[in-house]
């Protein structure tokens, strides 16, 4: 057995370097100012003060959260029925559909987002469709709608898959039991299926919410230059403004926010599945 254990040591070193140190660096930079060279160290809260004393940054953070939440909600509302329908199909078609849904996720997110750019163009496919209803020059690209659409498109498969697995691994005899005990279709769905799929929904939420909050290229491509979310600020700080300290601080704040929201959803999960009925 010892032999086997020793096989993990290289990887432990690896993660120490490739995962732990970067995290430390972020924290380190977040609490220092001046210069991107590790040499000049000045410990301070300046970055955080700057962030929290300025309404704009908070607004940006809130907007990011807002967009992410909307995206997540939409994903649940659309994703659940889809997953449900698929889960109820006979296994063969079931498998095929899951494959069909995963397929696009394998294809480059940027490529797919780029495609939406074209579709949502003024005078593009969508506005042409709209113009049929006399809404010709409705601005779609560069709007919240476009950004949320892009995010939903990119992230909903995760939601569907999560819910689907939770539904698929649910023992069908539970539904028989519910029926047997007098619950008709609707009732047995509400009292058995739904509560039992909550874990799936929750993990789906985490999988959607996480990238949605931090995403920066979807808003940039579909939202246009004026569309600033946390991700964009971070990108800007690192690649344009070159203020790594502030950038780190923001990403740290974002990470914390995410952790909190995850924690909250988890709690919901526990409660939901503990007293699913009533």
């Amino acid at each position, binding site marked *: 057995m010892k032999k086997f254990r020793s096989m993990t040591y290289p990887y432990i070193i690896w993660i120490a370097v490739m995962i732990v140190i970067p995290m430390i660096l*972020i924290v380190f930079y977040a609490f220092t100012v001046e210069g991107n060279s590790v040499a000049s160290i000045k410990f301070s809260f300046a970055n955080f003060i700057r962030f929290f004393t300025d309404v704009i940054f908070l607004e940006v953070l809130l907007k990011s959260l807002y967009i992410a939440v909307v995206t997540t909600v939409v994903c649940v509302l659309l994703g659940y029925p889809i997953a449900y329908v698929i889960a109820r199909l006979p296994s063969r078609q079931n498998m095929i559909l899951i494959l069909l849904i995963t397929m696009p996720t394998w294809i480059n997110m940027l490529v*797919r987002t780029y495609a939406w750019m074209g579709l949502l163009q003024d005078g593009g496919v969508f506005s042409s469709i709209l113009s049929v209803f006399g809404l010709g020059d409705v601005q779609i690209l560069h709007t919240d709608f476009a950004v949320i659409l892009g995010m939903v498109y990119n992230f909903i498969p995760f939601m569907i898959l999560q819910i689907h697995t939770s539904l698929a691994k649910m023992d069908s005899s539970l539904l028989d039991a519910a029926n047997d005990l007098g619950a008709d279709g609707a009732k047995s769905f509400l009292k058995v299926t739904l509560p039992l799929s909550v874990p799936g929904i929750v993990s789906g939420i985490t999988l959607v919410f996480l990238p949605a909050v931090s995403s920066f290229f979807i808003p940039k491509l579909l939202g246009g230059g004026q569309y600033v979310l946390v991700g964009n600020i971070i990108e800007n700080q690192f690649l344009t403004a070159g203020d790594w300290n502030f950038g780190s601080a923001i990403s740290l704040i974002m990470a914390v926010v995410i952790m909190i929201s995850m924690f909250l959803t988890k709690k919901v999960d526990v409660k939901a599945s503990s007293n699913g009925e009533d």
Partner: protein
Amino acid sequence: MEKKKSIPSKIILVLTLLFFYLPIAYIILFSFNDSRSLTKFSGFSLQWYEKMFSDSTMMSAVLYTIIIAVIATAVSTIVGIITAIGLSKSRRIVRNMVEQINNLPVLNPDIVTGIGLLMLFSAFAINKGFMTMLLAHIMFCIPYVMLSVTPKLRSLDPNITDAAMDLGATPFQALYKVIVPQIKPGIVSGALIAFTMSFDDFIISYFVTGNGVQNISILVYTMSKRVNPSINALSTLVIVIITVALGIVNLVPIIREKKKRK
């Protein structure tokens, strides 16, 4: 019990697939457009493919993407398996610790991972480019491999290695003659995930690359400002590559099955 398709569910499915495949169809269609327009299809032509293939930046981007994806997959798969097996035999504390840390890149937004690595590399004054990108990809691929291998390991009979060794196999023979074959499905899916993760990655690559090394995503991102249908051509290429890869991975087992039955 008896599952049947109702009309509404049919509709839902159709709409879903439409939603998922519209953009892809759009890309493919307009990659054959003979004008620069992204809004109206004025005629069939292959000019954008010619442009793409003659454009060295695009080609090298494709090449880099594939090379990195392949190497990252190979390395992360091997390392992932070895580590996962090692962990399955390790003390609980070690296992938990590693698994916790492992989850960081999965749970962290890519952008955080990206900037972390960016700072790591410049802290060690490593010249950014192919190597840094490759390292980064390996780094974020391994956890996915382990995530798909570990459960398979758990489901293994713990005595199986002992049995093998009892029959005279050295630990490592036991490893590759008994364990690896059994967790093969996990390995395959892990490798597949790793490959696509690497192939599609934008955010992390975007932060850790440099010195003119670009993968397809970065290229698309930097080019997306100007209308440039070669991007559609490129995307179509990507779609084809991925579809083929998936097709192979998914169909081969089915075909084997069929063969077996006969």
